[in-house]
């Protein structure tokens, strides 16, 4: 069920992202809802299908977005790798990890987008890109990290209920 649920949830997130959240901006930075969900979902200990969700989200975003396809295909699995790596070290504080992963993943995602566009011939001034897009995107992602984490945690508990030991 956890695997099958990926299809409707990723679809809903993409619809929300392209319609509503792409217009919620801070300067010219916008929230990356799918990225936040992948980060929050992979942080849930009971989730066993994190890699499937990650790959599906990467393919879906690569298909929908005009950004070079390899940006989400590299970025999303990178987030999951980072999380799995951090999870073994600071597992006591998942909320702290969520914020940490959000910062890292937002920087990586935006940085990679910038580099990919530069490689494809779209010259964006670094200062403009940094001040107008990257930093605001990181901040707005941080703002939404907490509610997304809470929803992902509740969904994970519903999909993968923990066994009660008597």
């Amino acid at each position, binding site marked *: 069920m956890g695997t099958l649920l990926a299809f409707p949830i990723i679809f809903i997130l*993409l*619809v929300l*992202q*392209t*319609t509503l959240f*792409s*217009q919620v*901006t801070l300067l*010219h*930075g*916008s929230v*990356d*809802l*799918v990225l936040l969900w992948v980060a929050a979902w992979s942080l849930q200990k009971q989730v066993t299908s994190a890699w499937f969700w990650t790959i599906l989200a990467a393919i879906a*975003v690569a298909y*929908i*977005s*005009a*950004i070079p396809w390899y*940006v989400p295909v590299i970025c999303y699995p990178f987030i999951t790798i980072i999380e799995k790596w951090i999870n073994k070290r600071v597992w006591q504080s998942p909320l702290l990890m969520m914020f940490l992963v959000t910062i890292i993943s937002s920087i990586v995602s*935006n940085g990679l*987008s*910038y580099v990919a*566009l530069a490689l*494809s*011939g*779209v*010259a*964006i001034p670094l200062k*403009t*890109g940094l001040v*107008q*897009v990257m930093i605001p*995107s990181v901040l707005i992602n941080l703002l939404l990290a907490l509610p997304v984490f809470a929803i992902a945690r509740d969904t994970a508990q519903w999909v993968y209920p923990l066994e009660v030991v008597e």
Partner: protein
Amino acid sequence: MKRLSQRTLQSITIGLIILGVLALALSGLLNQIVGKVIDPLVAVQGWFASRTQAMVEFFTVPRDVATLRQENASLKDQVSQLQSELLAARQQLTETDILYALLDFARAKPENKYVAASVIGRDPSPFVKYIIVDHGSDDGIVKGMPVVTQQGLVGKVVAVTATAARVQLITDPGSILNVHLEEANTDCQVVGSVTGDVSLEMVNPGVTLVQGDLILTSGLGGLYPSDILIGQVLSPENSDSTLFQKATVQPVVDFVNLKAVLIITNFRPVDYTPLVP
């Protein structure tokens, strides 16, 4: 005979009395007397009626409150339903206005064939400026078709599926188009940016840029038809140290509130890449 005459006399007397009373009543002379008799009775009747009404209300009011609450809830439902219908009607009115404006534009340029499409999404990445529209190859849309509104140029189709298409806006940082300045009578380029601002570049230094000069597509390069309005020159940057002049542009299209567009279907962009050495 004597008894009969007495009865007859009594009857006649009673009849005369009745006729007299009727005559007094009809002439209005009896009203004062009747009023004085009836007024106390009416007062008593009124007193009883008010007390009886109070008792009836005392016993029936709780039931009425329940009924009123029900009616209130029902009316509230109706109000909310009507409000949502009103909102839907207003929304439809807005969409109709947009479609009428697009229709006017299409009628004004009958040489072009158009497909009207609604904007259903925007690109998730903040680095690029693309929109997604609800018409695709099933409606004859192909890659490269120009997209306009009644105000002016929006962009071009860059990717197509069966039922949707992705449109690159002229505000996208990767968008470069050849334009013609009407008043200055010169060709130059309009370039998008990551902030969504549009600027005029590659302007010949010998040309005097004037604020408010109209910017139209030149048709050079074969990617867009000529003479589609883009915007106006906003603030020229005349500098002696630069090779070309620049200017910021005020686009005529409101890209933030873009809801419907027209795709020009009878224009085929020229693919000149095989000619590039």
